[in-house]
């Protein structure tokens, strides 16, 4: 535990020590991503009431000086305030970066491409399999605290290798390691690797595979079994997946597929089970400022999965459609209709409308 606290503290100190060097040279980007979302759901949950208006602000700062990079992203909303990313990077070569800090787990396309900036995404909602820890029903670790090496090889491949502290499972859900409160962390090591084939570095098309191993400590969580409800001592999660992003003409396809195995450990028993989950989204630009979109999400082997049963709000299947209208250079309006089925078998329909922007 002391080692983990020391590691987190060292991470913050290293960031703070390098910050003045970077700021002195001042080549920075300060970006604001405000979002205002209105939701109406036919089946309200604890996390999401029937009608909700949710403002949020994503504050992003990035600076670079020669071979050093600094990046910070803070998201604030009435429900939560969180330092989402806090990274300091060094470029050993022009095509690779070694990051230290809190970063987005390089799982698949969506989590590495879009982060929290809703303005950059076509849809309002994220696919449920990669929902953030702060939202109900999150099942995979989206943030890690540690080291991330990413770059491109001479051939058209890019890679990411990450090692760091993953989340722990509490009654409220998966909780990532707290960067700003390192002494509260009891999290354990997580590792992720991702390999992406990108035929042209200056184009968006890509095809990738990834794998992750996460040891998730638990806190006061009981497993639901027919033979009783033993207290969990920990979960080992292994996953592999594939991703695609392809654009041709006015069409764009984004898809991801995950195979997830969870081993739930209690004092006298161990249960292992796997499920698969994925989504396919299609965006179609009908005019310069208008994009129609649709997405299908589904999960196989979800029924009776002991891990997913711990997350009853998890959306195991969803169909959605909507439209995004670019008001001008940096503002967008979105409208989305969806039909979802949760792990606890509840079904809901949702209407969402959102204004998002990127300043300056």
């Amino acid at each position: 535990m002391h080692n983990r606290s020391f590691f987190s503290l060292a991470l913050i100190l290293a960031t703070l020590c390098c910050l003045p060097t970077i700021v002195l040279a001042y080549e920075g980007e300060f970006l604001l991503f405000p979002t205002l979302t209105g939701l109406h759901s036919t089946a309200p949950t604890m996390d999401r009431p029937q009608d909700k208006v949710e403002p949020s602000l994503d504050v992003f700062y990035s600076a670079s000086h020669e071979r050093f990079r600094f990046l910070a992203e803070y998201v604030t909303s009435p429900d939560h305030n969180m330092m989402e990313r806090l990274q300091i990077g060094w470029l050993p070569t022009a095509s690779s970066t070694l990051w230290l800090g809190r970063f987005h787990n390089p799982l698949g396309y969506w989590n590495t491409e879009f982060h929290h900036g809703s303005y950059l995404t076509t849809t309002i909602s994220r696919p449920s399999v990669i929902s953030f820890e702060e939202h109900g029903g999150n099942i995979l670790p989206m943030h890690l605290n540690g080291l991330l090496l990413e770059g491109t090889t001479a051939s058209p491949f890019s890679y990411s290798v990450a090692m760091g502290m993953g989340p722990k499972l509490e009654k409220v859900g998966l909780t990532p390691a707290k960067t700003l409160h390192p002494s509260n962390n009891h999290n354990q090591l997580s590792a992720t690797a991702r390999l992406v084939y990108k035929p042209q570095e200056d184009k968006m098309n890509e095809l990738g595979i990834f794998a992750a191993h996460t040891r998730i400590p638990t806190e006061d969580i009981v497993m639901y079994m027919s033979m009783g409800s033993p207290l969990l001592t920990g979960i080992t999660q292994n996953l592999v997946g594939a991703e695609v992003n392809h654009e041709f003409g006015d069409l764009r396809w984004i898809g991801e597929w995950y195979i997830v195995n969870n081993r739930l450990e209690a004092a006298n028993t161990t249960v292992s089970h796997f499920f698969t989950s994925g989504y396919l989204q299609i965006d179609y630009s009908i005019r310069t400022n208008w994009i129609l979109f649709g997405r299908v999400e589904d999960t196989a082997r979800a029924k009776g999965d002991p891990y997913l049963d711990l997350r009853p709000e998890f959306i195991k299947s969803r169909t959605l459609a909507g439209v995004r209208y670019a008001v001008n250079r940096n503002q967008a309006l979105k409208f989305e209709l969806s039909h979802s089925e949760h792990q606890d078998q509840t079904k809901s329909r949702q209407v969402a409308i959102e204004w998002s922007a990127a300043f300056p």
Partner: protein
Amino acid sequence: MERRLSMKCSLSIKRGLLILSWCLLGQLSVPFALAAGPDLVLVTSKTSTIGLLTTDEVRKLYLGIPMFNEGQTIKPLLNYSDGYLQEVFMQKVMFMSTPAYQRQTLSRVFRIGGNRPPIYVGLHPLLNALKADSKTLTYMYSDEANAHPELKIISTLWKAQD
């Protein structure tokens, strides 16, 4: 007789529509078929050691993919001093529209940090920035570049007669 008249009428309407379409197409094609003029060149300061860069490398550089010269990062500057020049650069070098370019660079910075190339609306501030830092480069018309002896042409990005 009436039928012949109506046929004549319809022929002249068709001819009129054809002429109108031709005129409209001619008008529309002006901004896309870039008129002949001076070449588009890549420039840096006379003291710079930045070597020859291919158009492909320039495209990557302007998209935010880092490139080093003698251990230091090459910094691309956006020349917005002339709207037409900017359009030529986007069409002929970046192969995308200005809004698409802005979205792509914003997305990249948000994803992996770094900076978007700074925009210079005036030519004088741009020339001063080039002079102040030998690791900077930009694009401009060849006659403009030749008129400033403190600048060095690295390569020709686009030939006007192409």
